[in-house]
C-alpha cells in the first residue's frame, strides 16, 4: 500500500512513468468490470480508455485515505457506466452484442461445463442492477467486500447479502438456459 501511495503521489505531480504504471496495473480489471456491467465488449473498450483519460485529468483531486487507488478508478468507471446505461435506457431497444447473440445456451449445469464470457453476460442480464454491480466489482474487478462497499456506498453486510443473492440468481440463470 505504501508503494501505491508514493506511486499515486508521483502521478499527481505529473510523473508520466508513475501514471503509466497505475494504468497498466488496473487497465484489465477496469475493462472486465465494464464488460460485465454493460455486456458489450466493443463499447467497453472505449469506455475503459475514457476512464483513464478522466482519471488523468482529475488525479490531482484524489486524496489518499488508505483506500486503494483502484477503488477511486472503479468509482469513475461506475459513474460512466451509470451514464451509459441511462442513455441506453432511453433508446427503445438495445441491440445485443453480436458475440452474445451467437452464444450457445444448452441446458446444462454450470458445474458440469466451463462457462464462457458470452454465456456469463447473458446470465448477468437476469440480475438486478445492484447484484450485477457487486458481481462485476468482486469477480471482474477483484475488489474485496470492504472495497466494493466503499465504491457502491453500501455497508459490507449489504454487499455480502447482494453477493449471495447474485450468485443464487446466476446459478439459476445458468441452469435453466
Amino acid at each position, binding site marked *: 500500500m505504501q508503494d501505491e501511495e508514493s506511486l499515486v503521489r508521483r502521478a499527481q505531480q*505529473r510523473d*508520466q512513468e508513475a*501514471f*503509466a504504471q497505475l*494504468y497498466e496495473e488496473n*487497465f*484489465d480489471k477496469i*475493462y*472486465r468490470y465494464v*464488460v*460485465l456491467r454493460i455486456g458489450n*465488449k466493443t463499447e467497453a*473498450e472505449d469506455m*475503459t*480508455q475514457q476512464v*483513464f*483519460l478522466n482519471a*488523468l485529468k482529475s488525479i490531482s483531486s484524489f486524496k489518499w485515505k488508505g483506500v486503494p487507488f483502484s477503488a477511486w478508478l472503479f468509482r469513475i468507471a461506475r459513474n460512466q457506466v451509470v451514464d451509459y446505461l441511462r442513455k441506453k435506457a432511453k433508446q427503445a431497444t438495445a441491440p445485443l452484442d453480436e458475440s452474445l447473440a451467437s452464444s450457445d445456451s444448452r441446458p446444462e449445469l*454450470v*458445474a458440469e461445463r*466451463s*462457462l*464462457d*464470457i458470452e*454465456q*456469463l453476460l447473458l446470465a448477468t442480464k437476469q440480475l438486478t442492477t445492484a447484484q450485477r454491480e457487486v*458481481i462485476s466489482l*468482486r*469477480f*471482474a474487478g477483484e475488489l*474485496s*467486500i470492504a472495497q466494493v462497499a466503499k465504491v457502491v456506498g453500501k455497508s459490507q*453486510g449489504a454487499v*455480502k*447479502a447482494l*453477493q*449471495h443473492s447474485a*450468485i*443464487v440468481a*446466476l*446459478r439459476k440463470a*445458468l441452469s435453466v438456459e
Partner: protein
Amino acid sequence: MRKSREFDTILDECLERLLVKGETVEQCLKSYPEQADELKPLLQTALATKKASAIQPCPEFKVRARYQLHSALQEMKSKKTIGKGGDNM
C-alpha cells in the same frame, strides 16, 4: 435474518479462500460441513463466473489505448512546460 447474515459471511470467507487464496471447493466445504449442501453449488457457480470473467482486452485495442494515453500525458506535460515558461516571464 441472523442466520442469513451468518451464511453470507461464511460464503464470503469461502469465496476469498477459493478465488484469492486458491483453495479448492472441497477444502472450503470441509470447514463448514453443516452448510456444505448449500455452499457447494454457490462456490461452483462463483468459480465458473470468476474464470469466465477473466477476459483480456484485445491486443490491438491495448496498443491503441496505450498510444492515446501517452499522447494525453505528453500533451499535459507540454502544457505544464508552457505554463511554467509563462510564469517565469
